[in-house]
């Protein structure tokens, strides 16, 4: 069975009990990302405190992979500096898009390495990245507003 490789226990745990779920106030930016091939969506809010990520809250409609990966995202980036959060994001994205070639660095992406198996299924990579791209977009928006 290849299923267990893809749906690691960590993923199923996050899916059943997602961390940081729900939309919370206050927030600096809100984004809404969709996966046009399957219709999955996430609404995600980011609250920054100076240069650090104070809160990430979200509401999502989607498969176990997208739900779990957004849950893992909140664990990894909340409390980190924006720079550090983006380093984690890049590392996660590199693994997710590697078609199984990059195992992922546990020191950087923690539970995120559970999604290494997902990267072997091209149709599911977007699911794994849905919340992450919404987060990236939200932070970029906050930064743009700060500079304008």
């Amino acid at each position, binding site marked *: 069975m*290849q299923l267990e490789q893809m749906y690691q226990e960590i993923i199923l745990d996050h*899916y059943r009990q997602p961390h940081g779920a729900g939309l919370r106030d206050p927030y600096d930016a809100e984004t809404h990302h969709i996966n046009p091939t*399957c219709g999955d969506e996430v609404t995600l809010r980011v609250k920054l405190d100076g240069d650090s990520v104070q809160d990430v809250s979200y509401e999502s*409609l*989607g498969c176990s*992979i997208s739900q779990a990966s957004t849950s893992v995202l909140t664990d990894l980036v909340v409390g980190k500096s924006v720079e550090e959060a983006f380093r984690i994001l890049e590392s996660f994205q590199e693994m997710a898009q590697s078609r199984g070639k990059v195992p992922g660095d546990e020191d950087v992406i923690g539970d995120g390495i559970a999604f290494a198996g997902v990267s072997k299924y091209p149709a*599911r990579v977007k699911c794994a990245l849905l919340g992450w791209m919404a987060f990236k977009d939200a932070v970029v928006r906050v930064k743009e507003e700060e500079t304008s």
Partner: protein
Amino acid sequence: MTAVQAPSGLDLAAIRGDFPILSRTVREGRPLVYLDSGATSQRPRQVLDAERTFLETHNAAVHRGAHQLAEEATDDYEAARAKIALLVGAEPEELVFTKNATEGINLVAYAFSNASIRTGLSADSERFALGPGDEIVVTELEHHANLVPWQELCRRTEATLRWYGITDDGRIDLDSLELSERTRVVAFAHQSNVTAAIAPVAELVRRAREVGALVVLDACQSVPHMPVNLTELGVDFAAFSGHKMLGPSGVGVLYGRTELLDAMPPFITGGSMIEMVRMEGSTYAPPPQRFEAGVPMTSQAVGLGAAVDYLSAIGMDRVFAHEQELARVALDTLGQVEGVRIVGPSDLTDRGGAVAFVVDGVHAHDVGQVLDDRGVAVRVGHHCAWPLHRRFGIAATVRASFHVYTTVEEVAQLADGVRAAQKFFGV
């Protein structure tokens, strides 16, 4: 897969033997169970051979050139058109080869659009001109291919888009809309690509006629799966794709009544669709050539002709009976699984072969992944019918769809796979 059981009386072992891909394995050696024919069907050796033979012996650009190969290629291309015309009860000159059904529908929409510009066109084209206040009517269950082109046409012409809603069992709700004297086009799917509900074509045509509107039929999920006579249906236009009816991709067909194609301005312009070209302007060839600009697909058209031969030899009535039997098995077996909800009619009345469903507590993508792990290929998502899914308050469904090579045993594996998914995700 050696199963041959077919209550519909088809020799499935022989049929399956014609489709080389069906004997392969997937995901660590599991026999392929292909239940995604609604997205694209597989092709029999006869179609593949027809394409190869054409390319090895007759290939040339059609409708140009006077050498022997050009003659032979043109004959093969036109013979394919004639075969397809016979299948759908039309005259050959009423069929335009397009890239696919999407292009066919766009061709009609752009003809309306071009007619609406009203400059330099024949008086005949005036009947296609649209403006503010005119209405185009679709339904909420349409595939995006029969929705977005009409949205865009409305945007360009300032016409208004209106639509029939959907009943709880996934049919067009005829009580949800009244056509008006300003309704110019009524466009709808012959068979829903999600719910498999077959539209009441006669009634919709009657209503359109009453107000003088033209009827555009999306026949993508009907022509490949059931007997269809477009002339008897009385529709004005119809579009279908080759790759959903055992034929090649890259070829589709637009049907238009002669009188309408004669009056319609072209969509794509250029070589081989002209009558006379001068620097100051050009006149256009009669249909169907007017709508086939550029060197068209040829081996694909020939392959589609071979697919029509293949289907005709079996008989479309038997294809339909077979698929209804498969739908019955799917509805029966899935109906026994707790937590499964069918999106679409739960019985076989006016219903084709596709079966879409949701599993409570397990997202369609996850169900699909478990099925895929067992070698069962289904479609998951919104199947390019997002508004339909929104109407039912769901993001995605699992859709199993069949063709003449699908067996009862394959369909029965669906329910087992769904139970496995429920177990895996602990619901």
